[in-house]
């Protein structure tokens, strides 16, 4: 019962990385299984409406220390986790530890503050990721993307993402008028297009997902025609991927 030989302990020197990663996830998902594996932390979950999916990899290299003897699954209430992570300041260290029925999060600086997060039962049902062929893969500045979505929000609650030889477009139409944001080919970081593509998405979901922008210098957009968009945020040691199902274009 005292779990002598079973252990997991990881030290994260930069609270910001964890906070920003989980902030985006916790906006979409209330509970998830966090998996501690030999080479890092993993999380895959779908939002209650089955519209968005997140796939997270946080490799052990970004931890100051990472010790594990066997793979572990922590069922976590993400709101609770965020509440704790928000208590950490940028010069603190965060220690994650498995203690019997809890995940202990210790914030360490001049004082040592421990929070025990009760583990909850989260369905272990496998979440399958649709395999899709994408005609367009474009890498852009996340801030430009986020600003474009906020522009679109001034007239509508949904937006069309388009890619063609001319660049990447964010287009919204509504009763209050139309908005078009263009990121020209030269303004993208990488630009790979076989044929032009367009799909429509909910702005609310995009806004939640783009909260992850803070961790990444670039975002890779995989776009097709009326299929889920894949948004990949890349930062050293972290891969955060979101898949968002499209809206049906009824106009």
């Amino acid at each position, binding site marked *: 019962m005292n779990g002598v030989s079973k252990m997991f302990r990881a030290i994260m020197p930069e609270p910001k990385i964890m906070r920003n990663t989980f902030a985006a996830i916790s906006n979409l998902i209330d509970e998830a299984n966090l998996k501690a594996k030999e080479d890092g932390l993993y999380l895959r979950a779908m939002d209650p*409406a089955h*519209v968005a999916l997140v796939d997270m990899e946080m490799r052990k290299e970004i931890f100051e220390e990472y010790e594990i003897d066997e793979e572990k699954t922590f069922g976590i209430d993400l709101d609770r986790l965020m509440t704790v992570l928000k208590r950490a300041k940028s010069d603190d260290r965060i220690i994650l530890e498995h203690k019997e029925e809890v995940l202990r999060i210790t914030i360490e600086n001049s004082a040592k503050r421990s929070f025990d997060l009760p583990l909850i039962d989260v369905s272990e049902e496998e979440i399958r990721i*649709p395999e899709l062929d994408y005609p367009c893969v474009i890498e852009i500045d996340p801030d430009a993307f986020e600003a474009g979505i906020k522009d679109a929000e001034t007239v509508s609650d949904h937006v069309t993402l388009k890619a063609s030889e001319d660049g990447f477009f964010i287009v919204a139409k509504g009763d209050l008028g139309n908005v078009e944001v263009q990121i020209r080919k030269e303004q993208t970081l990488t630009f790979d297009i076989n044929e032009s593509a367009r799909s429509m998405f909910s702005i609310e979901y995009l806004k939640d997902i783009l909260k992850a922008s803070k961790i990444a210098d670039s975002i890779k957009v995989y776009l097709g025609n009326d299929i889920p968009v894949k948004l990949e945020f890349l930062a050293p040691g972290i891969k955060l991927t979101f898949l968002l199902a499209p809206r049906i274009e*009824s106009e």
Partner: protein
Amino acid sequence: MGKIKCEIVKAIMKYRPMSRKLCLACKGSRLLCHRPKCPLLTKINIQSSFERKLREEIFGPSPSIFVGHSGYPNVFVGPLTAVEDEKADILDDPSKWYGLDLEDIVKLRSMLVRGKTRKNVKKMDKIVEKNQEVALSIKPVDTEVKFAKKPKYSLTFSPVSQPLGASGIIEKFDVAENPKIPKRVDNLLEDKVKANEAVVELYERGYDVYYISRAFSSGAFGIEKRLVPTRWSITAVDDIVGKHVISKIKKYSEISEYMVFHNTYLYNHFEILLMPSKWQFEMFEAWAPNTIWTLAYTKPAINVEREGFFGRTTYAESEAGAYYAARLAVAEALEKMKKQACAVVFREIYEGYIIPVGVWEIRENVRKAMEKKPKKFSTLKEALEDIKTRLKIPLEVYLKRSSPLNQTKLEWFL
């Protein structure tokens, strides 16, 4: 058209020149026109046969109280006293009104006289306590009210609370019998229980939202007791109880077929579509031109508000109390089924809805719809085809504004 209705229409028409598009967004509550009072909701002076019963002193049963909102935090509070003994218990209980037409409702409300005393909402004195006794009693309480002068009859409307008839400033107010207050409610007065916990507890004990909101407005609940304007307390209780019921249904399994419910009452038509999914709620409000709030329109005006599984973080401003009343009625029905679903509510308000009667109409209308046997369909397309036959506005107009009706799911792409 009935005589009273005709006179109301005439009175409203007088105000027509100032009507503007802001009215639909405001519905008399936010005063977007920057006037001190809503000109469309201004008291309408029509004849009532009860007028001759108005005296400077009235002795009669008081089924309820009313707390105004203008001048907040210094508001008018006072009993609603019946000028006839008969039927006093139903005069402020909209759960018993379903089926009545606009004219009946105006008549019913005209039998009540609203007494007014200006009070700070935080000041709990003897007068406020007497009001509280009336509000908490499950039966009308005999009261003696002495007015400063004979109350004057006029009709006042609100989109949230029920219409009011005559009113007057109170000089003296006494409760003439022991109010019937349930023991647990009496205890809540003394207890340091948060207001929303008290609301949920009473709901779980079987009290309906009408009694609870009355008690809530009288300042009976909460750690710091205070009066709550009637219209705010109605929506606050719908929201608190709604959230509570939703937290329960979110644990149930999803429905397995598409279900369609519908009902029409008081020129308000409802279609409620339930879809197999986790809990979500979306509500459309389509106002025909020429209702009180759409005098400036030539085409129907459509509002939409929604919430996902995790609920809202902002107030549903464009639909306000109507949204929370409908959401509660739908959630209650799902709780009875022990199921969860994504609900889309279509509310069409026809031209005949010339005066607002309060959000009880929405709550009872949707409750009635949900009590009926639903039509069941295996596809969304079939369900929408069925709904389409009863909607006056083309379905496409709604569809392009909907979120859940247009959203695909990830598993469709596996």
